[in-house]
Every structure is written in structure tokens, then in C-alpha cells.
């Protein structure tokens, strides 16, 4: 799913960005797991650019929108609720290599587990601290 981006076919690149950014992500079990908040683009020696990863998680959208302080704050807040020790591990949890992306359609399926993504940390925290304490949280509503 590498998208070449030489000026000659720059139109297709724009296209790819439009088709990727802000799309809904689904994990390998079909669970909703965040949106494509940003893309990692790498340039090889010949100057060609490739989309190498989907970025998704707390603070990333804020960074993309130029709100660095908000982005840092969200990242920090998330680190506290999740207590991920190293920065490196954190980076891995917000980065989904493009090879793991399946078909690019109205939603994008990625071959990861929702629990391995930073975008799911708050969901889990909310379950442990709030929703899990309210009776009836685990049953589907009655038909």
C-alpha cells in the first residue's frame, strides 16, 4: 500500500490522502478503534514519498491541527491513565504500519488488536473506573 508521490502523479497522492485521513479504523475483530488522525510519510533516497504508517491516538489530531500544547496535554493525560513507561513503547502504540492496513474503503481494517492501541486506553480506563461500577453494564439491552 505504498503510494508513490512524484510530482507527475501528485494528483494521486492528494487522492490517497483524501481517502485515508480521518477514516474510521476497525481492528482485526471489527471493533471501532479510532480514526486515521495523521499519516507518517517517508521519503526514500530517490526522493519518492511513501505513506509508511497510520497515526492514531490521544493528542495526534491536536498536533495535526497545530494545537501543540493541547496535543502534549492529551498525550500526557493518556500516559498517566495508562502508565506506559517508555516513550518508545508509546510511539509504537499510536503507530500502525501501513502493511497492517487491509482494504481502504469507507472504513479501514487494520490487523491489530484494539487493546494494543493507545486510542483505546481511555475506553479501558472509563470501564475500570466508571462504567464497570454501574449495574447492568455488561448485558446488551433487552429486546
Amino acid at each position, binding site marked *: 500500500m505504498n503510494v508513490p508521490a512524484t510530482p507527475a502523479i501528485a494528483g494521486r497522492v492528494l487522492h490517497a490522502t483524501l481517502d485515508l485521513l*480521518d*477514516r*474510521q*479504523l476497525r481492528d482485526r475483530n471489527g*471493533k*471501532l*478503534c*479510532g*480514526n486515521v488522525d495523521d499519516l507518517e510519510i517517508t521519503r526514500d533516497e530517490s526522493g519518492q514519498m511513501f505513506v509508511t504508517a497510520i497515526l*492514531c491516538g490521544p493528542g495526534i*489530531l491536536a498536533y*495535526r*491541527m497545530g494545537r501543540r500544547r493541547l496535543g502534549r496535554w492529551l498525550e500526557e493525560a493518556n500516559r498517566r491513565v495508562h502508565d506506559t513507561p517508555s516513550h518508545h513503547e508509546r510511539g509504537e502504540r499510536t503507530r500502525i504500519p501501513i502493511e497492517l492496513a487491509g482494504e481502504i*474503503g*469507507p*472504513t479501514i481494517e487494520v490487523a491489530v488488536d484494539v487493546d494494543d492501541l493507545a*486510542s483505546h486506553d*481511555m*475506553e*479501558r480506563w*472509563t*470501564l475500570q473506573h*466508571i*462504567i*464497570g461500577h*454501574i449495574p*447492568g*453494564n*455488561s*448485558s*446488551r*439491552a*433487552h*429486546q
Partner: protein
Amino acid sequence: MKKLLGVALGVLSAIGGFVDMGDLVANAETGARFNMNLAWVVLVGVIGIIVYAEMSGRVAALCGRPVFDLVRERLGPRFGMANLLASFFINSLTLTAEIAGVALSLSLVSSVNYLFLIPVVAFLVWLVCWRMSFVMMERIFGLLGLCLLVFAVTVWKIGPDWNELFSATTHPHVPHSETVFTYAYFGIALFGAAMTPYEVFFFSSGAVEDGWTKKDLGENKINVLIGFPLGALLSLAIMACAHLVLAPRNIGVDQLSQVALPVASVMGRLALAIALIGIFAATFGAALETSLSAGYVVAQYLGWPWGKHNAPRTATRFHVVIALAIVGATLFGLTGVDPVKVTEYSIVLSAAALPLTYFPILVIANDPRYVGPDHTNGRFLNALASVYLVILVLVAIATIPLMIITKGGS
């Protein structure tokens, strides 16, 4: 009966738009002040919501993506965020009014001060969001809301001069006691109510909740074509009742208790009871619609798991947002704000944000990668939808100045 139950989603969505707390009063007030001279706006509005709700339902059925997902994708995160903040704010105002409205309608029959009932109502709204299945919810409140048809029966029982009602609708004019500005302001309020954004948030998310697929495109059409016109009919019936019964006696309408007055005076106590059940169901239904919509828009913008088709423990942030919206609305309601004023302002403010919601729907309904090559809009539908988009933009521009000039329509 099965057919009737099948259109419950459309009916409940429409009730939230046309006859929720603020609109019940606004419809009656319009009838009392402008006769039927603004009825045409309801007709224009209902066509608009039919066109756009059908598109949103079709997109949801074909690719499982509800409206607010599309908003971020097509407007980009910035405009999407602006729409999110505006929609959430307006939604919360409306929710405040609905919770207070349910409390008011209960206080009419129990003579307990409505402020004491607000926390009780809020808890019940939360409980339904937490526990009741989506299907059950849409059926109970959608169908009970149809008790409001008693207003239509009342109009029929009065046996009005149909020609006069009809000609005021087709040849409208500004009554002598009103100005062009108040006429336009009330027109926008009615149009904004017909096309309230949370109708499509709720309708398209409901289509996903109900598990619609390609097979259900017919269901989508029927829901839209029966649900929304029914909402418009109820709205017009309430307007006509006020025009026929209240206007000749110089009774103005500014609170909920006066809305049902024509039914009581023409049809008696049993009919009044039916009308009150209808008012209760409509306001409660609208409270559910707005509290769920609060969860839908935030979760869909941020890509969280959402929906009542999941157990709460698998859509935790969604449920937290709903609970926070209900708590916020309750606290605001407890300050004793006039719920009628709150919805009137929220409708008019939402009119200013309408294009941001409807534009992405139109774009996606034309995109074969989302709806498949066979289900994109036809030419006629696109022409009609484009005309409405122009109207929406004009309305959005005119709204705030009119609100200031008329001091909120007074």
C-alpha cells in the same frame, strides 16, 4: 401492525424535530399569531428533511457510516470540530428544554412543582439510554407520540372553512399586527425545527443501531416518507388548532399548558388526556433523541465504539458522554430557565449551523465508493438537494441578524 412498527425510527426522528418541547409551543404560538400564513414553511421544511434524511439513511445502510463520521471526513477536522462544538451545544440546550418539558407535562397532571420532577425525569431518560433496547425505545416513544394525532382530529371536529385554511397556506401574507421581520423570524424557527440536525444524527445512527443493510433501502424510504410527513402533519394540526380556537379569543401561547387548550375545549377530558400522553411521549422521545445524539456526535467524530447495540461496557466513553450531557442539562434546567425560550433559541441557533451538517451528506450520497455505483443520487434528487443547500445557506446567514432585530421574535 408490523409495517407500523417498522416505521418507528422515522416517526421518532420526526417527532423530535417537529413536535418536541419548543416546537409544540412554537407551532401553537405561530398559529395564534400568524394564522396559517406560515404553514407553507413547514411544507418546504418537510421536503428538505425527507431529501436529506433519505440520503443519510441510505449511506448508513450501504456503508455503515452515520452522519457525524462523514462530517469529519468531508469537512476536515477543523470545520468538523466547529460543527461538533456547535451541535453539541445546541443539543445540550435542546435536551435541557426537553427534560424540563417532560417535567412540566407531568406537573400538569400531578400538580407537583416541575423543578422537583426534573431530576426524576433526567434519571428516567438516563435509564432508558442505559438499559432499553433501541428497537423497544423507538417503538414505545414513536408510537405513543402519535397520540398527538388527537390535534388533527380536533381540527376535523371543529369543521373549519377548509378553503380559508388552504388559501392562507398557498397565498400567505404577513398579518397586520406583525412585521416582516417577526414573520421571517418565525419562518426560520419553523424551518429550523423541520430540519434540526439531530434528526439526521439520530436517524442515520439509528439505521446502524437497527442493523440496516442494502436489503433495508426500501425500509429507509418508507421510514422517511411516512415518518417525516406525519411529523409535519402533527405540527400543522397544532398550528391550526391554535389558529381556530385560541386566536379568536385573543389567547396568546407562551407555555406548554396552553398548547392542549383547544383539544380540551373542543373534545373534552378524554381527548385532553390523550393529548397529554402525546406531549409526554414526544418530549420524552426528543429527550432520548438529543441525549443519544450527544453521544453519537462525539463518539463518531473521535472514532470511539458507540451505540446501544453494544453492551455499555463495550462503548464506555459513549455512555459517559450521554450521562454528562444529561447531568449538564439537568443542572441548567434546575436554574429555572424557561424551557420554551431555551428551545426557541436553540432551534434558531441550529439554523445557523445547518449547512455544515447537510453538505457532507450530499457529497457522500454521490460517492460510488461509499454507496456503490447503483445507489448514488439521481439528477433530480441532486438538483433538489442543491436548491435546499442554497436555502440552508441563506437561512444560516439571515438567522442571527433576525434574532437581534426582532429581539427573539417578541
